[in-house]
């Protein structure tokens, strides 16, 4: 590929609305395959939309006033992206174990979404329906 083409590609890719602090998949975009709280950890499996240029390397975790919010990180395949917990990918399903001191129930764990966080229990119910 010639240099002008590469510059054009870089310019187009940088102008694609990927400038937010942590590019992520919204709660409404993912399918939660399973989620289970055990002792002081959460085992979660999820699917993201298929994207040939992006994947989910893992999860960022933030706990405020007893509520934990998980951000499903979306990363370009040519980039390195920060995560708090790495996810393993197997046949389209990502799996991760999130350690949390105050793990209680799925109603107090949320997935980040630009329209406001959605509880893990709600997402799990939606994927079962």
């Amino acid at each position, binding site marked *: *590929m010639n240099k002008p083409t590469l510059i054009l590609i870089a310019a*187009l*890719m940088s102008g694609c*609305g990927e400038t937010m602090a942590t590019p992520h998949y919204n709660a409404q975009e993912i399918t939660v395959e399973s989620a289970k709280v055990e002792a002081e950890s959460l085992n979660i499996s999820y699917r993201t*939309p*298929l994207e*040939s240029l*992006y994947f989910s*390397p893992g999860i960022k975790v933030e706990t405020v006033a007893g509520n934990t919010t998980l951000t499903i990180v979306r990363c370009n395949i040519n980039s390195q992206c920060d995560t708090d917990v790495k996810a393993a990918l197997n046949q389209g399903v990502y799996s991760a174990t999130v350690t949390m001191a105050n793990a209680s129930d799925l109603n107090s764990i949320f997935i980040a979404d630009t329209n406001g966080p959605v509880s893990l229990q709600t997402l799990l119910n939606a994927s079962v329906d």
Partner: protein
Amino acid sequence: MTTIILGIHSNVAGSEHSFTAGHAWVTVTKDGSTQSYGLWPDNHPATIDNGPETDIRIGLEGTRFPVASRFYKLTPGQAKKLDKALKQRVAWRYTNTCASWASELIAEVTGVDIDADDWAGFETPRELGKHILKLEKKNPTSRAAPTTPEQSSWN
């Protein structure tokens, strides 16, 4: 006689999605059994890096229908063209994306042009999805009720 239905799919449609978002692929249904085919780069974590071998990957997409799908019933001659096309060695590049490949495969096999050209001529899933939906609005299809390429070219 074996019935073969070729589907083209995109999981994004229109400019509300970013230039690089989403994925496009095709499915082939033979006598009720469906398989998916998509072009993926070697360095995507969902794939196995097979070096210079073809980047056409089988079965990664599954058979769930995405936001934009269109289905064509193939003639025996078109089915032969499809078999040949799926066996070709194809490389993923920014100038030959999943959307380029899916769009060109449909054109090669059926003669139907479903445009995927986005800014600067790069072919994207969002543009392909937009044009699939445009065709579907005029002449809806489904896996159970596919159209024929001849009917499509008249629209």
